[in-house]
């Protein structure tokens, strides 16, 4: 399979709702998604065997995304560096445990760094800026035109993801952001947002399903 650029069409939902009939975003994939996924799996297999060059390549492919997530959660570059170091050592030691059946390597790496950053926040009894009421809104305001997804998916797809996330209903988006970036449990989110637990669960579920459906074929 060729690793070169590949063109495809994705329904484009501009700010404000569903994609108008016949309106598509013209995307140029920087790399083939399946090849990228296969490459990550191969790299993790090599890392498990002690291959440092594979580890370096895996770092180059995912460090920016992971550092961006850690920085957002911790709001502190030095702590984000520490977390990234710990997580990459964790990847070095546990790469053999990665199961491609339950997700992409990038998702796995993202959740590893998210969990470690959240642990750091809980240990220091601090909360990131996003844990605050206003912080959540800022997290999705996307003031920075370039997101961490650009490293992984390229400019066009990152913009598409940005727009799809931005079009989520605010209550769903807020619940998802609080869960992911602040490390709050469903009960804590329920209390923080002063909403019934069932409502929070439903919002999170519906929001993720919407993202999944609208980004089908992109991620």
């Amino acid at each position, binding site marked *: 399979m060729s690793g070169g650029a590949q063109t495809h069409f994705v329904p484009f939902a501009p700010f404000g709702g569903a994609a108008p009939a016949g309106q598509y975003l013209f995307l140029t994939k920087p790399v083939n998604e399946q090849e990228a996924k296969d490459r990550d799996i191969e790299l993790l297999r090599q890392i498990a065997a002690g291959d440092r060059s594979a580890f370096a390549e895996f770092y180059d492919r995912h460090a920016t995304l992971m*550092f961006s997530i850690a920085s957002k959660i911790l709001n502190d570059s030095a702590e984000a560096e520490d977390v990234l170091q710990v997580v990459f050592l964790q990847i070095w030691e546990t790469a053999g445990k990665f199961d491609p059946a339950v997700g992409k390597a990038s998702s796995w790496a*993202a959740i590893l760094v*998210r969990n470690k950053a959240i642990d750091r926040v809980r240990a220091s009894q601090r909360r990131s800026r996003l844990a605050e009421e206003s912080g959540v809104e800022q997290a999705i305001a996307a003031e920075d035109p370039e997101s*961490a997804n650009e490293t992984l998916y390229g400019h066009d797809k990152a913009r598409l993801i*940005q727009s799809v996330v931005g079009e989520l209903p605010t209550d769903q988006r807020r619940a998802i952001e609080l869960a*992911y*970036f602040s490390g709050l449990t469903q009960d804590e989110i329920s209390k923080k947002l002063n909403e019934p637990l069932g409502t929070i669960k*439903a919002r999170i579920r519906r929001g993720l399903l919407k993202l999944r459906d609208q980004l089908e074929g992109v991620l």
Partner: protein
Amino acid sequence: MIDERMEEQAALHVLGALTPAESAEFSRTLAANPELQRYVARLGAAAAAVAGNVPRRTPPPQLRARILAQVAPPKVVSLPQRRFRPSFWLPWSLAAGLAVLCIVLNVQEAQLRLTILGQSRRISDLQQLADSLSSTTNDLQRAVLALQQNNRLANLKIAMLNSLLTEAPRTVAVSLWDESRQEGVFVAANLKTLPPDRDYQLWVLDNGTTPVDAGVFHVNENGGSRVEFKTKQPIKVAGRFAVTEEVKGGVVSPTIKNMVLASN
């Protein structure tokens, strides 16, 4: 079939919003349900897309080097590290080794100095000997010339006598013997001067074993001597020559313990 409750649990799972107990229970269910695994994989990609929607922050370059430096293949790198890890005793061993080396070198240096000094003296002695032998050679050349004039060279026996005295290593002599005429010439150098009641006595060992008296001789102030001699008895084969120190006038049989020079 994944029901709505399981979908909610899956969504909370990929966002990390389950309590530890809930997460453990869901993980057990997930491990046994391939359909749920596929569902979670797709939902996890959506969650990762949200995570990656944060502003891009590039890690500092030195972080990469720091992380890579901390990992090492255990099968390849750890063994050499253990092998070459400096032990507590290594510096002391090196210091002790250097000290021993210094001592050995000092001893060798002293020995070399002594050797050089001894060799210098030896060279000086040999130079003096060469000078003496040069004079002796001149005498011998004159003797050979005289013998040649008498056409007796074909019957000439030439022998070199070396010192047997450790205190007089430079003493040397040459003896020429004309078997047909039963006479010879003896030239010596560096013999010590004897007291008035002592003489040097020359011996010709007939067939190499039987000493035959060839007369006594004296040395000049330089320890040199040149004499023409005849034996007291006929010599069949002049195998060897020897010089002994004897009482004045000589003796009938050589005193072996007083042998000064002898040829091979």
